[in-house]
């Protein structure tokens, strides 16, 4: 389970193989082996012994700011895997293989968006026509994207343009099906201008840290992206890869609104925008963690959504190592992934591999 510390001024220390979290006269003792990660979403104290206990148990400690963006994490000072992966990652940057990867990731994002809109359409007869229009808009972007050839460098603007076009259609469609009170005009960040964007931004912040961790475990360099350009301290690969997984946040967030789980107390106004309150953060984190713990069919196996992110990163790493960008047989891939999963520091026995 994930431990979320969001009481201002909490104190985290170690006792035996347990974490003790304390504030005033409230206290919680919880065994390290039950915890997969610790999220600190407020001002808190933590002792070095507790940090050592977390690292020894492969628990990462993530610090989130009020917008949900991780501003620091504590993780062991080792490279997740062989450096060969990073070497290859840099080597293919200017080659068509890189565009193949990027195109595949972006296409997946657009497919996810279309599938989600189609699912939404099923329950909403009155919006059928409008939604179909938006799906077609995304579909045409997808077609154009699939036709792109060359290097990422040469195609960057086109890809970003197509992605942006699809994204506008997607969010217009979502605004359409939102309850009257929560309709919004496009995406906004820093600060979010409305409740929906505030939720979404916080959720993406959580996802961002999961994807970064998965990259590190798989041995990918989070800073060496293809589509997103290099910049000072910019985790461009994380930006590249996260696109495939945004749906894992979009869907639960939209459902929170359409299923009337959102309350006014979830939000606080800030200058020119909206942020989540403590209750809002707690509700969102719980919904997203539950959703990530759902089991889906992934390449012929039943896997928790959370673990598909890790497996996808391993697949990317494996493709880089093999130097072969052609789709290799899934059975072969799964074997490699499985053996790596056994050896690596995946959260607990989530994948069902550790439980005997």
């Amino acid at each position, binding site marked *: *389970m*994930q*431990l*979320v*510390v*969001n*009481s201002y001024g*909490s104190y985290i220390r170690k006792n*035996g*193989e*347990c974490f003790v*979290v304390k*504030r005033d006269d*409230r206290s*919680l*003792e*919880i*065994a390290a*082996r*039950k915890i997969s990660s610790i999220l600190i979403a407020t001002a808190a104290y933590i002792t070095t012994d507790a940090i050592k206990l977390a690292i020894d148990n492969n628990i990462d400690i993530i610090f989130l700011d009020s917008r949900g963006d991780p501003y620091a994490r504590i993780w062991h000072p080792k490279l997740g895997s062989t450096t060969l992966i990073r070497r290859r990652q840099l080597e293919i940057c200017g080659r068509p293989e890189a565009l193949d990867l990027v195109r595949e990731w972006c296409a997946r994002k657009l497919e996810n968006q279309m599938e989600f809109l189609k699912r939404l359409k099923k329950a909403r007869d009155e919006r059928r026509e409008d939604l179909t229009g938006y799906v077609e808009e995304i579909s045409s972007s997808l077609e154009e994207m699939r036709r792109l050839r060359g290097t990422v460098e040469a195609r960057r603007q086109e890809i970003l343009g197509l992605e942006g076009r699809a994204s506008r259609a997607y969010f217009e469609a979502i605004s359409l099906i939102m309850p009257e009170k929560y309709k919004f005009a496009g995406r906004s960040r820093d600060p979010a201008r409305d409740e929906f964007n505030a939720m979404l931004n916080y959720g993406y912040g959580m996802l961002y840290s999961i994807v970064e961790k998965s990259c590190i475990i798989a041995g990918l360099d989070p800073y060496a992206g293809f589509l997103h350009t290099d910049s000072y301290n910019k985790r461009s690969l994380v930006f590249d890869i996260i696109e495939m997984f945004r749906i894992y946040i979009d869907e639960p967030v939209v459902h929170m609104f359409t299923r009337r789980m959102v309350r006014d107390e979830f939000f606080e106004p800030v200058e020119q925008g909206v942020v989540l309150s403590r209750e809002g953060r*707690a509700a969102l*984190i*719980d919904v997203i*963690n*539950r959703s990530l*713990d759902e089991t889906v069919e992934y390449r012929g196996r039943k896997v928790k959504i959370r673990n598909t992110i890790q497996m996808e990163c391993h697949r990317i790493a494996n493709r880089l190592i093999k130097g072969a960008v052609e789709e290799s047989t899934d059975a072969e891939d799964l074997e490699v992934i499985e053996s790596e999963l056994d050896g690596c520091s995946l959260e607990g*026995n989530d994948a069902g591999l*550790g*439980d*005997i």
Partner: protein
Amino acid sequence: MLVWVIYDISDNRTRSRVAKICKNYGLYRVQKSAFLGDLNRNESDSLAVECESVIEDSDSVYVFPMCEDCFDKIKLIGTGFDRELVSGMTVTKFF
């Protein structure tokens, strides 16, 4: 697998050592001398071995596995425990 650990130990120090072992394995204290939680077979075996090494001959520690159906049928009277937490169903724990 849900596991109950119930003990009767006369020496204070031994008793608190057994309690600590239970906590370290991620069991939850549901009564003074009763712990409950979700363990796999290996964990429950090694927990039993560790307890055995600290207790005296006159003490007793029971490690009971319990099936999920039976767990659902538990009746809680008076101060109960958090069913979701002890059975490992809690995905996010807030503090």
